[in-house]
């Protein structure tokens, strides 16, 4: 009898005992057939590892044999190992991590490998020493493609006999034949773990996920789906698994009017996975679901299934409605405060005018009074317009006309300068004499300037310094008109600066936090931009740019 090894043809007759290795080969084939029939259809890795360990023990007449296969998913623990005889439960044998380190060396040798031959190689020395200490004589690695997935090991032959060349040839053929079965089991286990992982993910999704086949039968449902359907279905459905049931039995047409048609694959084809709201009536109560319907390939060829995700958003929608109501309520309060704040600014200007008139009268200078009165009247008119038309800052009516920012600025300054909060503050102006006219709402820009000047004055007063100074500049170029306003006040903290125009914010004890919101609105109404440079303790510069 001969046995083809691939390298040479060798007689397998063992002359010492007169036993043909062909008989051993037949036995080995029987063992392989036995393993294959048991594990081809159901390749459970732990079962295969155990059966393989017993098989190699018997086939090679050893009391102690082991098989270790790397766990395809390390989340489920270390290698799967089974040993017979003294190797049973011996964890020191495995060291698969070390074996993987030595993978290249193991791949380079013809299998099976004598453990003694691995002692001299530095990559395998430690591993081989551990095996030799445990009494392992032969090992055979299992590879799945290029990846080492496991190893089997054989101890001493019983009766003190040694492994002959014939034994090694047979072992080689055995390993070559068994490796695909081991690799298949490994891949199967990898897929099983992946399936389990995906199932875990699916079951942890808060939305109900259902897959419905072409006949309207529920083929898959996740944990949230089961939970949701248990609350929706009749008692008869509640106690059974929904898998295998027609969707029409689970979703009553009265609860989900018109949607059963949508859930069929034909209906779903036109849906293209968009999310919609579905109002259902369950036990007389209206519930709102967020529903996504799409199509997925089914398990059979050409089969198209429908995948449905349902999320009960009734509570969320109720909260959203309450938040919306609260927001509207808050907005009304905010507007009232904002209006009061702006009126206060106008009153400040009027008060300034009156104080100026008082000075004129005390000095007996009457000639400027008509002009001052006229300006006061103009400001009262502005107040009237404000109360009439600018009550709601979010709907600021912008009435633009051709004006010059320098003129508006001068006008504002004449009233501001006499207010008490500005009496100790020097206001310097550096106005561009060639500043072009722009289409602006003069009232809104006045309001903007007053707000910024008031804020600058307050920032200076806070420092208690005697050399308070506000510098107002105007500039222009081909594309824009620029206004800058610098103060040497307390400055703005960086974290406050970030939020300055985004929310109603104040750092003042008596402030409302709406002045800059109004400024932002006015700047936006003129398609302008604002930049702020500020250093704590040194001051702040606002740079506002308007397009020409």
């Amino acid at each position, binding site marked *: 009898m001969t046995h083809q090894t691939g390298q040479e043809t060798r007689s397998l007759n063992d002359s010492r005992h007169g036993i043909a290795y062909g008989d051993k080969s037949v036995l080995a084939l029987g063992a392989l057939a036995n393993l294959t029939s*048991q594990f081809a259809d159901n390749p459970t890795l732990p079962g295969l590892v155990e059966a393989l360990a017993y098989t190699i*023990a*018997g086939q090679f*007449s050893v009391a102690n*044999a082991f098989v270790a296969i790397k766990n395809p998913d390390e989340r489920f623990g270390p290698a799967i190992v089974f040993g017979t005889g003294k190797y*049973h439960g011996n964890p020191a044998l495995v060291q698969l991590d070390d074996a993987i380190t030595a993978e290249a060396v193991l791949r380079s040798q013809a299998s099976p490998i004598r453990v003694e031959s691995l002692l001299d190689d530095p990559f395998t020395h430690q591993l081989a020493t551990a095996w030799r200490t445990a009494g392992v004589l032969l090992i055979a690695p299992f590879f799945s493609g290029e990846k080492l997935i496991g190893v089997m090991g054989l101890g001493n032959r*019983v009766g003190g006999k040694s492994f002959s060349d014939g034994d090694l040839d047979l072992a080689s053929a055995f390993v070559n034949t068994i490796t695909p079965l081991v690799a298949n089991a490994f891949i199967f286990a990898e897929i099983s773990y992946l399936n389990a992982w995906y199932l875990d993910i699916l079951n942890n999704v808060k939305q109900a996920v259902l897959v419905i086949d072409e006949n309207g039968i529920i083929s898959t449902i996740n944990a949230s789906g089961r939970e949701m359907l248990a609350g929706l279905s009749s008692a008869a459905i509640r106690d059974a698994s929904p898998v295998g049931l027609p969707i029409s039995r689970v979703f009553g047409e009265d609860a989900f009017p018109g949607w059963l048609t949508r859930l069929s694959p034909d209906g779903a084809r036109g849906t293209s996975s968009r999310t919609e709201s579905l109002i259902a009536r369950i036990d007389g109560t209206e519930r709102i679901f967020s529903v996504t319907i799409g199509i997925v390939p089914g398990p059979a060829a050409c089969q198209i299934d429908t995948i449905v995700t349902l999320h009960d958003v009734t509570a969320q929608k109720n909260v959203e409605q309450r938040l919306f109501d609260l927001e509207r309520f808050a907005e009304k309060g905010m507007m009232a405060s904002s209006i009061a704040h702006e009126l206060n600014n106008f009153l400040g200007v009027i008060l300034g005018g009156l104080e100026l008139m008082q000075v004129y009268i005390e000095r007996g200078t009457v000639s400027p009074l008509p002009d001052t009165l006229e300006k006061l009247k103009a400001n009262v008119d502005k107040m009237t317009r404000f109360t009439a038309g600018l009550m709601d800052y979010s709907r600021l009516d912008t009435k633009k006309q051709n004006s010059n920012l320098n003129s508006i600025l001068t006008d504002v300054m004449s009233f501001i300068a006499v207010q008490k909060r500005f009496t100790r503050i020097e206001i310097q102006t550096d106005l561009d004499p060639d500043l072009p006219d722009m289409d602006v709402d003069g009232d809104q820009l006045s309001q903007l300037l007053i707000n910024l000047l008031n804020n600058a004055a307050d920032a200076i007063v806070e420092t208690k310094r005697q050399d308070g100074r506000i510098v107002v500049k105007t500039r222009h170029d081909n594309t824009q008109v620029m206004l800058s306003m610098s103060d040497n006040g307390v400055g703005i903290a960086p974290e406050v600066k970030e939020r300055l125009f985004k929310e109603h914010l104040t750092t003042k004890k008596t402030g409302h936090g709406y002045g800059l919101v109004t400024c932002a609105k006015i700047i936006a109404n003129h398609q302008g931009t604002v930049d702020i440079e500020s250093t704590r303790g040194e001051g702040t510069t606002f740079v506002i740019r308007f397009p020409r």
Partner: protein
Amino acid sequence: MEKCSFDHRVLQDDVFLINPGKTLDNSNAHEMVQALTNAQADGFRFVIMDLAALEFLSSAGVGSLLGSVDLFRERDGDIILCNVPSPIMHILTVLDLTEFFTIRPNEQEAAVACGKE
């Protein structure tokens, strides 16, 4: 004796007899190891394995016996095979195990090998 999934009986104080039935292979190799381990743990020094009914012995079946023999021999006991059918004996011969296993033609002689007759 903890539960044994094979036909079994106690022959003497420290002799336990197991009849594995028609098949000893992958499907029941581990059960056999468990039965032998339990017998040893329960104080039986000898197990007589009556193979009269055995029609199929796979490598895995042989492996289950090989791995368990030392459990008994280390305690001056043994696993003794008896009533070994000819095809089964052929397998043991092919695997060069006829000298390793203690084999007796029948239960009585197996009992003698246990030093009980």
